[in-house]
């Protein structure tokens, strides 16, 4: 977990260290330590007492039905996002412009599948099955993050997604490492540790483009222009309109509000954009001495709602792709089950 110093790279371009990432990873480590410390404290009795004592709720504990359902919804949406999120980046694997970048991108998209699986496993401890979760995704009953309904139009989008989308995801996810539900918290710790390379590779890739040929630089700026506001929208509707937030906070599923996290993300990105030498597409972005934060233009929440409801540029394409993969795999899954039923052990 060393983010300070220079990036290691093999292509002769030094990239300065990203400020802020260090703090986030430190938080993951501290969340893990807190999880162990909570386990060491004497056992509290009731659900409320466990929550109150900052201990973890475990799978077969008694828990309010709304806590269970809310968690299933949240973890499932998170898992679906990882799985659908493979598509926009998977789109560029076969065209990656160097073998090194191809290997990095393959490994990253593979991690996303892995993270989806960790999360499905966590959701299943709450008494829902993978089949039910898959069905809920494919039927559109459960959602995934709207960010993945935007297209990846150039190679620079790989960098912008790594930096902005993964960056926003990490800001969202790090507090979840302290979530009151044990399996979710443990999955998030594992995921955050593994994802530390995702954001870094994106930033480094964008840095190379920003310092490359004029065409590469244009590509990088264009990608940042397109991904900035959708990334801000990843934190969800403003606190004043957020439906699930208050209860989630009380149950210690969520630890910070949407707007708090969004602000934190903006504050991290501004100096990082400076180092890249790229501009964030917000003319009103400026430091507010009084607040100790950057003022910024909020994303278009009407657009967010349109995309959530299915009218984003790629909603139909992403869903059709997932359904197709599932349908085309049916004969394979049936054959494997038929073989298993024969009781042979190959």
């Amino acid at each position: 977990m060393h983010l300070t110093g220079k990036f290691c790279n093999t292509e002769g371009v030094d990239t300065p260290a990203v400020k802020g990432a260090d703090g986030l990873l430190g938080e993951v480590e501290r969340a893990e330590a807190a999880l162990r410390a909570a386990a060491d404290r004497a056992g509290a009795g009731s659900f409320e007492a466990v929550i109150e004592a900052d201990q973890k709720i475990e799978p077969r504990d008694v828990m309010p039905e709304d806590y269970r359902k809310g968690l299933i919804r949240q973890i499932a949406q998170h898992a679906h996002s990882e799985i659908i999120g493979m598509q926009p980046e998977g789109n560029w694997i076969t065209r990656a412009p160097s073998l090194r970048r191809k290997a990095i991108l393959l490994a990253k998209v593979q991690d996303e599948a892995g993270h989806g699986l960790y999360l499905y496993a966590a959701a299943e401890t709450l008494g829902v099955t993978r089949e039910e979760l898959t069905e809920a995704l494919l039927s559109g009953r459960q959602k995934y993050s709207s960010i993945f309904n935007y297209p990846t139009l150039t190679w620079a989008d790989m960098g912008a997604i790594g930096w902005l989308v993964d960056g926003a995801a990490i800001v969202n996810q790090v507090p979840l490492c302290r979530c009151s539900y044990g399996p979710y918290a443990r999955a998030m710790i594992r995921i955050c540790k593994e994802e530390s390379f995702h954001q870094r590779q994106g930033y480094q890739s964008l840095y190379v483009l920003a310092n490359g040929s004029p065409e590469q630089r244009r590509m990088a700026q264009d990608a940042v222009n397109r991904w900035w506001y959708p990334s801000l929208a990843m934190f969800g509707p403003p606190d004043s309109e957020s439906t699930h937030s208050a209860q989630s906070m009380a149950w210690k599923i969520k630890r910070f509000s949407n707007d708090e996290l969004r602000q934190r993300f903006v504050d991290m990105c501004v100096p990082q954009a400076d180092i890249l030498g790229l501009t964030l597409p917000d003319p009103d972005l400026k430091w507010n001495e009084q607040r100790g934060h950057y003022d910024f233009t909020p994303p278009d929440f009407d657009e967010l709602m349109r995309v959530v409801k299915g009218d984003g540029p790629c909603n139909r394409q992403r869903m059709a792709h997932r359904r197709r993969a599932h349908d085309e795999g049916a004969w394979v899954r049936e054959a494997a089950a038929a073989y298993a039923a024969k009781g042979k052990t190959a």
Partner: protein
Amino acid sequence: MNEPLWEVFVRPRRGLSHTHVGSLHAPDARMALRHARDLYTRRQEGVSIWVVPASEITASSPDEKDSFFDPAGDKIYRHPTFYELPEGVEHL
């Protein structure tokens, strides 16, 4: 087609016990083991893996928690610190 659920246990290093790391779906034990390797040891996290059908695990129920675990709570004589030693004794 519902693939069975398998619980995965990984021994992180020699000298440590297998630890539960998560679960996955696979049609049979052999495929479960292979998937566990690909999924849970992508970063050299293990030297040995167990997979167990989730349906074969019998878990204690939270309702039984008191009768199961509280009785052990007052048997402090099972712990070495219960025994005071005379001064000067070493290697014990």
